């Protein structure tokens, strides 16, 4: 709940939902939770528009509400974390496309756009949209099967159900367990012919972000091990993670012990593709345990040995890497060396830093103070109770409070994200006229192509954009693309930080 977070959230709301939702969101962020009349008062907006904005925020799960003390009005509250997730939507879609194919991607895309939607309406809208598309070849039965497999895998879940207490006008939302639905293709095809408003299906679905985040976590862990050791070790970790899902809670800091025999069976099954893994199974396991940054630990001898996966340790190690990288990029490699040194010694005196870092005295001091100034390290004064002389009354111990430093890094990310959004909005505003013209030319040309008009006419329309205008446009597009890519990268860093904060 920091100042920087508030600024990012307001910028993102501006980009996605416009100025008025931004004002309402900002107001809610500053004041915590408040009823409609208070929002109207502080923002000075007409009530109808505040109501509309709140609808938008509630629909996309960016805010919640709860009955206030008088049980007639509701108090609204912004969920800043969910606003940040808006940036991650493309990543969810990419994940779906690469893992389950284009049908799943379409389903998730439509569901993200609708926020909550019943299964029948969802499937019918997609089928109608791509009815004439020969390339994608979407059929209802395929869509239905994808929907069911997504529900089974937990990527989509049932939306919480309302519960109305007597004498209270505000419903409370209660989460329900997801039941995989029985969908009938014939029934769905019949629904295609009906009007959307006639469909009565009151089981609503929403995207389960958490399931996607588990996928991202596994991917990061496997990638880290693959880069540190090799692909076979990555494969082994993947099997271990899969076994972990069977026995423990998905976000558990440490998995329940997994017997080696089960892991060996898994590896034997893929022996055809990974012969090395099967041949050198014991060696790989040993290397993974000793040199895998503590992702895996041997925790028992029973049954030929038992191993556990340690996501908490993984988050810790990855956070350290991120912070080191951050220090390197901001203050140089020498500062990173001091940072690593302090981390390995836990508590260290200034003189010892100079001795061990092997840097010139003055430079070392300067870098230490700079690190201290930017809150990457902290200092702990220790007073000696009974010292006789005036010298060395107190010693100053430098150390790293990882949780605090992680917060510092998160603040940096928020600030950068805000700057990126702000800059992109500025670019867009400055070249609004040109971008608008380009869009109009594109739609006209597209329409002409569809009508099959001759090429010279199309060229004529395209030439309304003069070469200097085109040059400006390409440079603007390049800049916007770079800024958007930066947004995605920052989101990746934030994901690691959020993962670390998950384990207190």
């Amino acid at each position: 709940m920091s100042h920087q977070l508030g600024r990012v959230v307001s910028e993102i709301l501006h980009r996605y939902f416009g100025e008025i939702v931004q004002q309402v969101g900002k107001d809610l962020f500053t004041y915590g939770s408040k009823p409609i009349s208070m929002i109207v008062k502080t923002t000075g907006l007409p009530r109808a528009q505040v109501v509309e904005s709140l609808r938008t925020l509630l629909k996309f799960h960016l805010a919640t509400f709860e009955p206030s003390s008088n049980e007639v009005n509701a108090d609204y509250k912004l969920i800043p974390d969910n606003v940040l997730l808006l940036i991650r939507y493309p990543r969810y879609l990419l994940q779906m496309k690469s893992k389950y194919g284009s049908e799943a991607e379409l389903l998730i895309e439509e569901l993200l756009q609708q926020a909550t939607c019943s299964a029948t309406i969802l499937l019918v809208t997609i089928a109608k949209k791509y009815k004439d598309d020969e390339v994608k070849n979407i059929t209802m039965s395929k869509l239905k099967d994808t929907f069911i497999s997504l529900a089974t895998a937990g990527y989509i879940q049932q939306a919480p159900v309302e519960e109305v207490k007597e004498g209270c006008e505000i419903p409370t939302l209660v989460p329900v367990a997801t039941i995989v639905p029985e969908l009938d293709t014939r029934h769905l095809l019949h629904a295609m012919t009906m009007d959307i408003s006639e469909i009565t299906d009151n089981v609503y679905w929403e995207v389960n972000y958490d399931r996607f985040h588990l996928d991202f976590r596994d991917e990061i862990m496997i990638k880290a091990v693959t880069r540190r050791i090799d692909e076979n070790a990555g494969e082994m970790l993947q099997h271990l993670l899969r076994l972990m899902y069977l026995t423990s809670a998905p976000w558990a800091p440490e998995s329940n012990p997994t017997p080696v025999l089960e892991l060996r069976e898994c590896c034997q099954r893929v022996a055809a593709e990974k012969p090395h893994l099967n041949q050198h199974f014991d060696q790989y396991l040993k290397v993974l345990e000793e040199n895998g940054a503590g992702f895996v630990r041997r925790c028992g001898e029973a049954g030929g040995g038992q191993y556990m996966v340690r996501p908490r340790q993984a988050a810790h190690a990855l956070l350290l890497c991120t912070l080191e990288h951050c220090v390197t990029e901001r203050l140089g490699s020498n500062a990173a060396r001091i940072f690593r040194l302090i981390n390995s010694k836990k508590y260290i005196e200034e003189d010892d830093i100079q001795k061990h870092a092997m840097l010139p005295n003055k430079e070392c001091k300067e870098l230490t103070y700079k690190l201290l100034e930017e809150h990457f390290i902290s200092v702990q004064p220790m007073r000696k109770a009974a010292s006789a002389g005036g010298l060395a009354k107190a010693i100053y111990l430098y150390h790293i409070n990882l949780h605090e430093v992680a917060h510092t890094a998160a603040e940096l990310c928020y600030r950068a994200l805000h700057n990126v959004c702000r800059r992109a909005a500025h670019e867009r505003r400055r070249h609004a006229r040109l971008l608008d013209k380009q869009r109009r030319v594109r739609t006209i040309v597209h329409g002409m192509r569809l009508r099959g008009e001759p090429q010279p006419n199309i060229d004529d329309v395209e030439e309304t954009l003069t070469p200097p205008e085109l040059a400006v446009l390409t440079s603007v597009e390049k800049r916007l693309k770079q800024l958007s890519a930066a947004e995605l990268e920052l989101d990746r860093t934030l994901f690691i930080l959020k993962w670390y904060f998950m384990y207190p």
Partner: protein
Amino acid sequence: MAGRGRGRGSGLSLTQEQYQALGITRGDNTPAPLAPPPLFPKLETKPLPLTCDATTDYMLIVKDQFIEYLHESPAYVKLQARTDGIERYSDKYKLLSLNAKQGKVLDCVWNRMPSELRPQTARVRVVRKRKLNDTTDISKRLETLESKELQEESGETTVVNENEDVKKDAMEEEELEDEEEQDYEVDDGTDYANNYFDNGEDYDEEDDNLDDGPVY
């Protein structure tokens, strides 16, 4: 007793040796910074290039599509379209395009929203309009009126006359219907019915209020 000679604040201030240990010597005390730090400090090293592969391109396209969808949907709340007082030919079209989305309401699961957010007022209006427009409703009402009339007259009329009456009534009914519809349209179309007369009372009231304000 050794500390006495160093002055009273020996517990708080540092000695010369300690200052030296911290790197502060007598000679090179840094001058206090006078200007605020620059708003955009210069980067010491060039930042690393961003990876731009097919997946990034895909994500960027998808993101733009999503934002475009949101901007077109009623979720994107806009200010009421306003003019600056100068009439222009293009105003009509601009307002039309801006207000096209105003009527649309976000598609939500209303049961799961607090009642104050549900579009109740809009619904009531729609129902009222329907009542006025519905011809079957009007004809039904006329029929009931007609049957009442018939009941009153039933003592006097004969069977033959009754038949004629029914025909006449049917004609009248049609005429009535036409009239009603016309009336309805006329009422809406012109503004003769609207009262533009300003008797000046409101103005006075406002003035009074302003005058009354500061009196305590």
